């Protein structure tokens, strides 16, 4: 029955987890089948239909019915003066706890139970007695803690520690089960996905935690479980990023979150917001500059003039923090070039000139385009000498790097400016040299 059902909740989405629970239920069911029929007045006989009802509802993911059946089972147990003991009680207690958790998750506002006692408490009580299938059970329990923590805006250190531990303990248990499994096999790959899910959650928690640095250890321990899997590169990246900015885990987590959102084509504003947050919490100026460089790069690739302007702004911030960084110089200069070029094409010559001047205020690999922009903007305002000097400089720099079609615009710009200012003879000389050079 469970095997063919598509799970709807987060944790049971995984086939292994679902199968594991099915095994629990089947095993207990088998025990019941071989138990001699009890007289009707026997408490166990009275309890048995309730237990079966709880199991059946749980298998059908009817959380309301499962929860009610578990309530009835425990109430009947209490009425008979029977102890909260034995594997059957433990199973029903876990079912009750999990079912109530699903009810809470669906609508916390109308939840009629006490979360601590009836969700967490019930599952803990169960785990004291019945410790089979630890991967599944600790995953559910950890998820309950995690969701409650999230509901409280990640501001509860006790829930945070417990969420982390039970989610991690689930992974430890599964890693042990899979110790003989090939690391490139289906089971281990599924497990590695769970480890990545754990790290995603850890990142989310670390973002708001009062002690983000604890995740330097927690995340790295989890990464160790995933090494050797198909996602080895990703685990190595995550292992490294929590050490970003000298172990400033919150900055590292935000940095990675921003990169992930960017690479998955998230909403640009959301991506930039996460990057901004990362930059703000970063302590090292080089690390902060790197984030601004990335923001400049990202913005420059987005459509819209506003993003081009923001690329310049981010590039400027990066450059101020780390002016000797070659990548930052290129990013900042390129952003200015793009803006200058756009202004020029839109006829905003003053703005174009301003950006071009800024982009030639420092040396960078590729600054021939900046001198190109500067010269033609200056020419527009009749600034003859500067325009000629800068057009020649752009052409000279370009000649050292480019040939053919790539060199052509620089050559043409220089010639145009020469002619604009009545220097046709010089322009012809340059043209002759250009053609003579085989370009």
């Amino acid at each position, binding site marked *: 029955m469970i095997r063919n059902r598509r799970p709807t909740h987060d944790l049971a989405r995984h086939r292994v987890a679902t199968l594991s629970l099915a095994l629990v239920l089947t095993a207990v069911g088998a025990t019941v089948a071989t138990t001699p029929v009890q007289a009707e007045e026997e408490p166990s006989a009275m309890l048995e239909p309730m237990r079966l009802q709880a199991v059946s509802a749980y298998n059908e993911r009817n959380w309301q019915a499962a929860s009610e059946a578990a309530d009835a089972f425990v109430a009947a147990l209490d009425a008979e003066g029977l102890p909260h003991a034995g594997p059957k009680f433990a199973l029903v207690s876990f079912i009750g706890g999990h079912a109530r958790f699903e009810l809470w998750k669906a609508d916390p506002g109308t939840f009629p139970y006490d979360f601590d006692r009836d969700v967490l408490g019930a599952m803990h009580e169960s785990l004291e007695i019945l410790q089979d299938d630890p991967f599944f059970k600790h995953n559910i329990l950890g998820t309950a803690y995690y969701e409650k923590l999230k509901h409280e805006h990640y501001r509860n250190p006790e829930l945070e520690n417990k969420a*982390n531990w039970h989610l991690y303990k689930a992974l430890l248990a599964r890693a*042990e089960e899979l110790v003989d499994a090939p690391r490139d096999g289906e089971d281990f790959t599924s497990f590695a996905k769970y480890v990545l899910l754990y790290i995603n959650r850890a990142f989310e928690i670390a973002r708001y935690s009062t002690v983000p640095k604890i995740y330097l*250890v927690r995340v790295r321990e989890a990464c160790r479980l995933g090494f*050797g899997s198909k996602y080895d590169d990703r685990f190595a990246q995550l292992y490294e990023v929590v*050490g970003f900015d*000298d172990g400033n885990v919150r900055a590292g987590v935000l940095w990675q979150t921003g990169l992930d959102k960017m690479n998955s084509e998230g909403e640009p504003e959301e991506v930039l917001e996460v990057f901004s947050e990362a930059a703000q919490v970063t302590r090292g100026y080089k690390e902060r500059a790197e984030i601004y460089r990335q923001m400049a790069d990202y913005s420059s690739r987005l459509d819209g003039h506003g993003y081009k302007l923001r690329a310049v702004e981010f590039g400027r911030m990066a450059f101020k923090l780390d002016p000797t960084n070659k990548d930052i110089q290129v990013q900042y200069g390129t952003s200015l070039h793009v803006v200058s070029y756009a202004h020029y094409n839109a006829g905003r010559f003053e703005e174009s000139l301003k950006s071009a001047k800024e982009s030639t205020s420092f040396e960078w690999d590729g600054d021939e385009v900046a001198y190109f922009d500067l010269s033609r903007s200056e020419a527009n305002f009749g600034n003859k000498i500067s325009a000629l000097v800068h057009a020649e400089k752009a052409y000279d720099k370009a000649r050292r790097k480019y040939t053919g079609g790539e060199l052509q615009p620089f050559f043409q710009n220089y010639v145009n400016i020469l002619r604009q200012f009545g220097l046709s003879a010089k322009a012809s000389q340059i043209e002759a040299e250009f053609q003579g050079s085989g370009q």
Partner: protein
Amino acid sequence: MSRTKSRRFAIIAFLALGLGLFSGVTVNAGNVDPVERELGFVAELYRAITGYHVLLQGDGVTRDMVAAALYDVERYVEELDGRYATNKLFIEDHAAMEEITQTVAKAHLQAALLHAKGVDLEGSISQYEKVIDLLGYNPVDWEESIARSAVPGMLPGVSEIVFEMASPREVVEDLKRFWAAGVVTRFKVEEYGSASRQAFKIERIGGRKDPFSEAAFALASERFSERIAEGLEEFRVVLPPGRYRVSAADPTVETLEVALSRGGVPDPIVLNPNTFNFEFASPDEKCALTMTINGLTVKNFQGLSYGTYRVRSAPGCTRRIPDKITVEQNSEVSLRTEPERLDYVKEGQPIFLFITTPPGSTYTLRM
């Protein structure tokens, strides 16, 4: 390894090492003997615990950080304890079991050290007691190498951790230094009703104001409240040296002050709404007594708290007097102390008297 050799060296854990280690284990896992595999799991859990040293090192370690790190460490140690208990049932290989025992003991020693660094002195002492239980002997004689501390190495991005290794003897010395900053203090509260007890609060009204003492008191204060809330009638709390006041908003609760000194072994502190009086029958003024209770000198012998009094006589007194008198509340007077009653105690040995007396009564000390 020789126990006399100094084992102070550094381990550098690189990311690459982590990758290699785990890949290696996995590749060969199919052929690994279950006992060997169990040894591997136990060793991994122990290794994970040592990773927390780097978080409790240096300045800027917050209470939340300590709580989070110690929470994890305690869970790892519980995990190891669970495995140890199960392994004892199923592993017949004595050498392997001994190795597991040693690893679990090392984990508890690490936990003792980490708790001490996190100023949870009580937790530290409890963990240390487990080390002794597991080993069956004092760990100072243990031939092992223990990670004593860890700091990030020179490589950027905390991609290496440098561990300082030490012998158990050195680690125990570290622990003793930490523990000396705490005084194990027992409280007895059974004479108060549950409602009154719930209102108890403990304040630190004197002593050093260094971060260690303040953090240790904050934790001790939490433990005090937890134990009161649990309904315990007698419990212990490890407090940093200093002066304390136990009081409550409830007017029926008598405020009590206590002074704890570094390295001291205080008598149990008795919280009791009732009092009694002492009267001295001795005509010998040379033997005028000085008494202290809870580290404070008694100035007035009326309205005294129940508890243990430490007694000193004036320098010229030749009579034998008790070193301590413990007074408990009871409806009857259990002993009347007279000089001749002390003769059975051998010369040079301390004399401890235990007496009971009803609330409001006057107890006559005939000595």
